[in-house]
């Protein structure tokens, strides 16, 4: 039976992971298999984990303001390690200014969730958007 696998990642010098942990817990309760990376991961580490764990969704939590350099690098390394970022739903959560949304979307981010987003909204987004991503995926 197929299971939706999600990687919840903390990238860079940002020590706040309560949100990431709460989200991980809720996604588990929604029936997903959730892998949490722990704090202070580099973009390479997150990308390597995404490819080796063959996840369907990568959720990057960033509260440090460094999303513009870090997030595109995660996507770049996923490709470099042989993964296909077009088959993976890439989400970013955290303190992201609206002005940066277009840049992230252009880099390949599928969904951006700022503080205050209800978790049910994130779950709904994954369930609706993932099947579109999976089209053509040889699972």
């Amino acid at each position: 039976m197929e299971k939706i696998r999600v990687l919840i990642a903390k990238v860079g010098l940002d020590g706040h992971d309560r949100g990431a942990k709460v989200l991980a817990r809720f996604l588990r309760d929604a029936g997903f298999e959730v892998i949490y990376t722990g704090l202070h991961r580099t973009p390479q580490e997150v990308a390597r984990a995404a490819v080796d764990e063959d996840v369907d969704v990568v959720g990057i939590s960033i509260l440090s303001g460094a999303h513009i350099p870090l997030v595109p690098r995660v996507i770049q390394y996923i490709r470099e390690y042989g993964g296909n970022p077009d088959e993976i739903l890439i989400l970013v959560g955290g303190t992201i200014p609206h002005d940066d949304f277009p840049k992230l979307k252009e880099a390949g981010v599928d969904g951006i969730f700022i503080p205050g987003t209800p978790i049910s909204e994130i779950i709904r987004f994954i369930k609706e958007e993932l099947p579109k991503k999976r089209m053509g995926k040889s699972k």
Partner: protein
Amino acid sequence: MNVEELVEGILSKKRRFLARAITLVENEHPESKEVLRRIYPRTGNAHVIGITGFPGVGKSTIVSKLTEEFRKRGKSVGIVAVDPSSPFTGGALLGDRLRLEGADVNKNLWLDENVFFRSMGSRGRLGGIAKKTGDVVKLLDAAGYEKILVETVGAGQSEVGILEVADTVVVILMPETGDDIQVNKAGILEIGDIFVINKADLEGAENVERWLKYMLSLDEETVMELSKLSHADEVKLMQKLKWKKPVLKTIADRGIGIKELANEIERHYEVLKKNGILQEKRREKAKLSALELAIEEIRAEIAKRYKDLLDREMDPYTLADRIVKEVLKC
């Protein structure tokens, strides 16, 4: 990716293909059986090491430190870490990977080309591992990983499923997890080839060590006594093995005792190989896994073919008799 590409990719150690093949096996995708069939002749080269113990004793930390140690010795390492799936939602929080050492650029296990880590949900199977853990180990084996560490779900007194996959079983304990009676109830203690008392700097470590050594000495006596009476295969096997189960102390987060643990793991493997027990154990495992696969298919077939019969109101015993009689006829 088709079967051809997957097999080719696994055998040439391409991570992306290995990762996808593992997913197919976990999902019991129809193609996965063909992949496993094709790679099977290339398996059997890895040393499979089970790491088990109560929740919180430090299994994941020991896995990380052991990986580091085996890498120092020039071995490639595959890791399968199992965590429990929720019986209600099927979801799982897979939290073993985060203990993997990554901070130091010179020994970053996350990026080491010769380390492959995979998290698994138990997906409804009790016993400490997932139904497909054994097959995932085979994929890593075929991909050429030399040491394969299998970390079980935090296990208690009856999670002995690791025996189905591991050549060497390491049982981790820590101080203050119960008295000598708990130790003598056996459970997972019975399945260990090597015992580790982790967090050995905590008070009470000596007590655990004393009780454990006492229990193991009783085991040896029991084997001697029973061997006079019974011809149980297990007893014969244990005698033939002549392996005195070591008890080690570690403080894993500081790396203390890890080298000694790796030495004992290696030594156990050598003894298994020398006495021919390794082949015997592996034949037994192949037999069991064939039996399990066959039973699974028969079960599915019965559920399909006798659906109507099962819906009828009849006592389960009569129903079972009728099904068995009919199935055995054909």
